[in-house]
């Protein structure tokens, strides 16, 4: 018994660097070998709502997609944009992209480049990218009232007169759905306050896990329909889109978020084990001290 106690006491006062090593491995291994750590991802209620909302749309509907994140929040949000574009393109929905963050342009061009060709979508007919405009919520207010005056040209500088799909929209009311991929300000909160709520357009959002607490109140009272909360939300939505595509006979490679989720789980388990170890040692040393003194 004494030996076991000593082991635990030693385990309770590990050098920081051993913890760092273990946390590093618990993240690295699932990334290198995702197959070993594949965990079943059971979509939760919020992600299911988002999926159902998008599934309800028919082909020919128009969706406004807003890119409001940058390279540092890419691990959590970019998998959502890829899964969302797969879902929208497979249902032949017209996608209109805008960016409220300067880096949003890099993110939108990368996302379209990765997905649009798989479905043979043509620029200007099936999807258009209007690019970044400075101004935060002022941009949202303009989109709500008159989008054509705000975007004389698209991201490549081509005037919107000769983009066929731009003839069908004048303001946010001509869109059947708005989806905000947000990592901070300006983001989903401003979309609700200045565009979708006043004009009554259905809206969903995908955001970083740190931001979820500020946006959940809007989800609870229905102003935003469901939410993809951080990386777990992205993994769950990827899972839903994969099963949907399988039912249509298409197959897509498993998304980034799914493999990263197993790394998340492993890291969290390692941290919880450390906490439990720390407490067992603390309990034992406290008893020894009490017995000793």
């Amino acid at each position, binding site marked *: 018994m004494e030996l076991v106690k000593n082991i635990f006491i030693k385990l309770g006062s590990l050098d920081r660097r051993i*913890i760092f090593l273990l946390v590093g491995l618990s993240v690295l291994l699932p990334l290198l070998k995702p197959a070993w750590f594949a*965990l079943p991802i*059971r979509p939760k209620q919020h992600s299911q709502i988002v999926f159902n909302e998008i599934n309800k749309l028919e082909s020919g509907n128009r969706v406004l997609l807003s890119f409001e994140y940058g390279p540092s929040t890419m691990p959590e949000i970019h998998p959502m944009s890829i899964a969302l574009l797969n879902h929208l393109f497979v249902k032949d929905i017209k996608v209109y992209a805008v960016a409220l963050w300067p880096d949003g342009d890099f993110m939108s061009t990368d996302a379209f480049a990765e997905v649009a060709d798989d479905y043979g979508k043509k620029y200007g007919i099936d999807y258009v990218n209007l690019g970044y405009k400075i101004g935060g919520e002022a941009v949202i207010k303009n989109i709500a009232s008159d989008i054509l005056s705000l975007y004389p040209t698209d991201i490549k500088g081509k005037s919107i007169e000769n983009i066929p799909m731009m003839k069908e929209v004048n303001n946010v009311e001509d869109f059947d759905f708005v989806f905000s991929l947000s990592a901070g300000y300006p983001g989903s909160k401003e979309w609700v306050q200045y565009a979708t709520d006043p004009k009554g357009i259905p809206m969903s959002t995908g955001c970083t896990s740190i931001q979820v607490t500020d946006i959940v109140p809007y989800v609870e009272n229905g102003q935003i329909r469901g939410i993809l909360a951080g990386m777990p939300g992205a993994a769950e939505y990827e899972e839903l889109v994969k099963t949907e595509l399988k039912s249509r006979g298409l197959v897509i490679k498993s998304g980034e978020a799914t493999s990263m*989720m197993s790394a998340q789980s492993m890291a*969290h388990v390692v*941290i*919880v084990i*450390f906490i439990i170890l720390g407490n067992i040692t*603390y309990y034992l040393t406290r008893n020894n001290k009490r017995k000793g003194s």
Partner: protein
Amino acid sequence: MFLKRHIPIFIVIGVGLLTLFGHFINHKGIQDFVEKDALQWFEIIASFAIFLGSLNMLKLQMLKIIRKQKNWPYSALAVLGFAFAIFAGFFYRGANYIVISDINESNIIPITEILTEELQLKKPESIPDKIRASEDGYEIPKIFMTQSGAEIIMEKLEIFDVNMELKSKKWGAHLTERGSLFSWMFFNIFNPLSSTMFALLAFFVASASYRAFRIRNFEATLLLVAGIILMLGRVPIGELIPWWVVAILIVFGLGAISAPWIKNRKMVFSLITGGIVLFLGVGFAMGWNQTPPQILLIPVIQDWIFDYPTTAGSRALMIGIALGIVATSFRIIVGIERSFLGE
């Protein structure tokens, strides 16, 4: 004396009253000032001050180098880094691009081939109709950091006797243009350093929770329990924890809370074991194995903890902080708090 001491205090009180009561005054000029211009002025003054800061940092690093103090070669690296950033920001744009115009129809396909093969452009098939659609010259979507790099491509296009123009992005826009030297510095030096420092937090979160989440007293236990439940509840693994494990933990928790009130040790242990047996017995009898009740699932408990007790704590904290800020601002506006002016 008057200029140094009294005028700054008058400015603080005057501007404080103006920005506070400006919210109520029905005058367009003041409303604009309070909503937009006040902070814009601050941003401008802060931008001037940044040069002051950089000069101070440079002075200290140079002193270290001249006096050969400990770690002086690293200070040389800092000065070099600063010089490189200033060079990329102010002296060398490195954002050249080529505009080709009046291309006749037959040359479009060969030009597209050269461009895709030379510059590895992503969507080659869309280039031909872009060239046709462009009236005042087609901008090749590649930013060249050096003029010589652009000239190589122009030589290749010479054979099509297209007239070509080597242009450069305007000053100021070159900072965020994807190909320029400054954005190369941002994506290859600044961004990796910044996001890796940010990523260090994953290790520090682990070591901090390992060291700090110890059951020292009841408050630390609450901290620990809430932390663990939140951590497990948000990852897929949290759902795999069966209901009876949670049941046992709850009984242990109740036992720990009631322990100080029950004197002898034996009574507490018998209570806990009795509780566990009872809980499991009822559970299996009620067939909880197939449809465990919501209350015994970690993700559900996590949602409840996050929606109610945490929001209560945050609300009390937010009101407390807001009151602290209101009182400190009041003391500044009334002129009682003046130490930052060095009276």
